[in-house]
């Protein structure tokens, strides 16, 4: 079943988004240091399974395996020329996983940062970044995504470039953008949640908010500030499952499903409309989030 994100936001008080993709891919055997997007072609079944598990856990929005799918990031792996192919495949896999779902699922095309600093602080010109984002967005839309989902951003000028690129390639496709507030309540580049919410609302995005960072508590504070600044905004909360600790060379995140259930309730209380998770989370965390929200979701 397909449904638009705007429709879901109209009809339900809170929506459940999925959890970490990288975490699951590495658990499934993806080699350290290799580009996760390659599995969209080499191991599509493994990627599809992760989507299916998140959907079964209750996710109504799933993010494609294309976080590092911009030409800039793929070029670090020598894969720049495969950007279109890998992003298209990412969207197709997610779409196919959603087809078997028992509930409506929105396919969101994940777009992460280029990994470079934009001018004037760095060398990447905003318009060149926009071109790379446009290429990625075009392929994601061609593969069948419903919305384009810009995430883990630190620099508002890179968000602008991504929005510009998406609109260039796919005018009319709804956009979502989330930033990462991991530096004393701000993004690495000093952006505040309040100012970002105001800017992103002004850019006409369907939803925006926060993802990744230093665990649920800091993210919840950011959401709170955004909600006070822009009470009408559709806010997105996607926190990491706590903080990582290394145990036998493997990262173990310290927030279990019960912690994420409490986080989900608080995120809703703080004004978030779309609630999911990020690094370190698994379908178990998303199931706990979905159950927590379902139990107490006011009927609208």
């Amino acid at each position: 079943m397909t449904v638009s994100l705007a429709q879901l936001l109209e009809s339900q008080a809170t929506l459940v988004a999925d959890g970490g993709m990288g975490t699951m891919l590495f658990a499934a055997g993806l080699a350290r240091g290799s580009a996760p997007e390659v599995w969209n072609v080499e191991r599509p079944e493994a990627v599809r399974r992760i989507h299916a598990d998140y959907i079964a856990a209750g996710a109504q929005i799933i993010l494609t395996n294309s976080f590092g799918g911009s030409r800039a990031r793929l070029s670090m792996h020598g894969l720049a020329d495969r950007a279109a192919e890998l992003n298209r495949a990412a969207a197709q896999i997610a779409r196919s996983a959603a087809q078997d779902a028992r509930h409506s699922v929105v396919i969101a095309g994940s777009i992460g940062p280029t990994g470079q600093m934009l001018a004037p602080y760095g060398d990447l010109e905003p318009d060149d970044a926009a071109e790379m984002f446009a290429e990625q967005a075009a392929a994601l839309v061609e593969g069948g995504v419903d919305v384009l989902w810009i995430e883990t951003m630190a620099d508002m000028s890179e968000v602008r470039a991504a929005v510009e690129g998406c609109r260039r390639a796919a005018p009319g496709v709804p956009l979502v953008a989330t930033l990462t507030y991991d530096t004393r309540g701000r993004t690495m580049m000093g952006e505040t949640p309040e100012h970002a919410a105001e800017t992103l609302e002004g850019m006409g995005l369907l939803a925006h908010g926060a993802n990744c960072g230093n665990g649920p508590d800091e993210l919840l504070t950011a959401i709170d500030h955004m909600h006070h600044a822009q009470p009408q905004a559709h806010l997105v909360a996607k926190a990491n499952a706590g903080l990582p600790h290394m145990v036998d060379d493997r990262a173990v995140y310290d927030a279990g499903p019960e912690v994420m259930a409490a986080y989900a309730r608080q995120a809703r209380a703080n004004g978030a409309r779309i609630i999911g998770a990020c690094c370190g989370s698994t379908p178990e965390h998303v199931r706990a989030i979905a159950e927590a929200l379902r139990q107490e979701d006011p009927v609208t």
Partner: protein
Amino acid sequence: MSLIEEIREGVIEGQANVVLEKVRQALEAGESAEVILNQGLISGMQRVGELFEEGTVFVPEMLIAARAMDKALTVLRPHLVEAGVQPIAKVAIGTVKGDLHDIGKKLVAMMLEGSGFEIMDLGINVPPEKFVDAVRQGAQVVALSALLTTTMPNMKDVVDAIDQAGLRRQTRVIIGGAPVNQNYADQIGADGFAPDASSAVRKVRELVGV
């Protein structure tokens, strides 16, 4: 305000052209290159680091300040060489094997350079052998970066490789990156950890005893 104070202020404000001009004037006025460096440029960068740690300024301000210092150094460097002014120590820095993240490592490198260290930037996705080579070439400190929990274990490989090469006692290893903490530094036998570029400078100074 003296010229030196103006240089320091210019760095804090990130005014590259002002800093450049004042450094030229100071040199013409016969000020020593070492004083210009230490009391002007480095002192300014140190203040920027403090402001960063206080949460008053963020990465963009740090970048602009570092750029101002960099520009001034192009004029000052020949005078420093002539006067025989040595860097505090040589630091080899890189993002460990398998990890392609550049920004955090670059910031740390810039702040260290701005504090008077000589930097050997080994880049991203750096195999352990390259860090070992850098120690052989005189790096007294090795600074390792990782942004991913999946590449963090490769930091330990570097510590082990330096150890196996018999160079561990002449090297200090410092680690950093979003998922890294002091506990992990202890776990892999690194000498220190820093949560951000500014604390990294403080930690490295502490490790080399200045």
